[in-house]
């Protein structure tokens, strides 16, 4: 009896200590989460502040009287400037959509081929893909500029889309994920008389859905935020993308434009976040295959 009592006491004490350290951990993590989130929340919230709250000092963190006037200012007031905001928005949407679509098509086809069909020199090619993942894009910035000029793509939307499509990471991810696709399934489809293309459409693509959803998230974010490409490969201001416009507004510090700047920041940041949150489950399911062995 006595022994039992002691045992229970120890267990109880352990439980208390465990709970205490757990509470401490949660408190610390919530604090850190705040540090991570506050700048974002601030920027997202600022977009809805009326002008008097925007210029208040010390500034208010949360919006008191939310308004959409900053957005209307962005869409209407900036209309008079050389390139209207809507044009940048249109450019960004078009370029990002086509780049994302192209990347998904090219990467799923290539990954499927490399994993399930026979591609000549596939080992060498896959090694090249891995090598391409080990250096930053800045390395090829200059030759890319020249190739784009030679191909006559300079100052076209294509310059912002085509070079991005065959990313090494997309290929790598699709190949890794496709390795999980059971071969007998494909064999069965072939015996039933399905052509290679319909196998790709009806079996591979649905199977790869989490992987290409992930690629969609990453490619979207990369394209939507890429300001450098449209500065380098484009000289016509009316073909440039949103980040360029944002830097332009933020550089000429004009108090009247504070609202427009906040609204533009919102439009740049929100879509990537929303797309990630919507696809989070698929992204997490895919990323496990992102390891390099």
């Amino acid at each position, binding site marked *: 009896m006595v022994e039992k009592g002691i045992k229970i006491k120890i267990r109880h004490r352990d439980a208390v200590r465990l709970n205490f350290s757990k509470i401490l951990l949660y408190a610390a993590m919530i604090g850190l*989460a705040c540090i*991570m989130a506050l*700048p*974002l929340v*601030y*920027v997202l919230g*600022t977009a809805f502040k009326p002008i008097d709250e925007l210029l208040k000092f*010390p500034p208010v963190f949360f919006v008191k009287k939310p308004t959409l006037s900053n957005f209307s200012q962005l869409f209407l007031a900036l209309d008079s400037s050389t390139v209207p905001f809507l044009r940048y928005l249109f450019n960004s949407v078009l370029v990002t959509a086509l780049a994302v679509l192209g990347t998904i098509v090219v*990467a799923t*086809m*290539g990954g499927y*081929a490399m994993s399930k*069909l*026979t*591609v000549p020199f*596939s080992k060498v*090619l896959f090694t*090249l893909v891995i*090598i*391409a993942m*080990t*250096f*930053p894009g*800045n*390395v*090829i910035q*200059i*030759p*890319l500029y*020249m190739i784009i000029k030679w191909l006559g793509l300079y100052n076209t939307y294509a310059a912002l889309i*085509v070079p991005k*499509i*065959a990313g*090494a990471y997309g290929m790598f991810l699709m190949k890794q994920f496709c390795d999980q696709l059971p*071969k007998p399934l494909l064999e069965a489809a072939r015996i039933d008389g399905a052509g*290679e293309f319909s196998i790709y459409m009806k079996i591979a693509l649905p199977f790869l859905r989490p992987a290409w959803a992930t690629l969609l998230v*990453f490619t979207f*974010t990369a394209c939507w*935020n890429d*300001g450098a490409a449209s500065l380098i490969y484009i000289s016509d201001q009316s073909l440039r993308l949103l*980040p360029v416009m944002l*830097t332009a507004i*933020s550089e000429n510090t004009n108090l009247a434009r504070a609202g427009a700047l906040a609204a*533009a*920041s919102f439009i*740049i*940041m929100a879509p990537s*976040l929303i797309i*990630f*949150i919507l696809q*989070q489950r698929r*992204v*997490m*399911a895919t*990323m*496990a295959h*992102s*390891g*390099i*062995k």
Partner: protein
Amino acid sequence: MKTSTIKAPATKASSPKKSWIKRWIQKYGMGSLFFMPFFILFVLFTIVPVLIGMAMSFTNYDMLMTPKFIGLDNYKNLFIFDENFAKALQNTFIIGGIAGPVGYLASFLFAWIINNMKMKKLFTVIFYAPSIAGSGMVVIWDYLFSGDRYGFINNLLINAGLIQSPIIWNADTDFIVPINILILVWGSMGTGFLVFMAGLQNLDPQLSESGRIDGIRNVFQELWFITLPQVKPQLLYGAINTIVVSLGVFPSFGGFPSPNYVAHTLAAHIQDYGFLRFEMGYASAVSMVLFFLSFGLGQVVIRLLSEREEKPVRKRRARG
């Protein structure tokens, strides 16, 4: 684990009478067709640029005159005379060398902690979000580090009596580099963090159980002996990702080029010579330094962390 040894027999069925072209098409035709779009674009926009860059780094190409071969002159100038290059190299190591490892360790640490917590999804979003926030964040950095006394940090410091007059953060050469590091660390929990999270979610629970039976006493022992070996592929991917991001760092705070080039990095140097001065040959030499640094470090990391399973497989196949 997954070897491709089964590939070969597919062709055995074809009769030996067929010409080699037909046999090649039968074996490789479909694969090549599906692979072609990627192959063409990858060669044209990734492999060829690397080769052109390599070749161009030995020339004095400036977009106007035909390039002339000048041997190693660009590299000599870089390493001996170019003070900004020395600064860029040093800054890349300082900025990337601090933000990279800190971000990498933080990514793993937080992935590990969050994985054992409730509300995983919410915490994942919050920690990952800064890395995809992108250029919209200038609004907050401009406000936090504003050079007048109404800037958040200046105001805080003045009220606390630590400084008398406001610090002009984006022009003060002492602060541009640290602020850049801070911003980078804040946004460093990106793809690597997600990969770690995913790896940790797919751990084999049997292994940690048998570990406990074998005398694993606390969470740290479990982390070291049971968990880390299981997520090695993810650790390797994260490491390569970190290297690429850190070495390719472009200072986002302080303008370009930064005052007195204090925050100049290799990526900024490429931009500077390539697109401001149009000395393409010289800029290519800088690109090649960046390429070999990144590629070399990548290879070192692959050697260290790769599960070398391929070698025995190859040997077996060679014998058989």
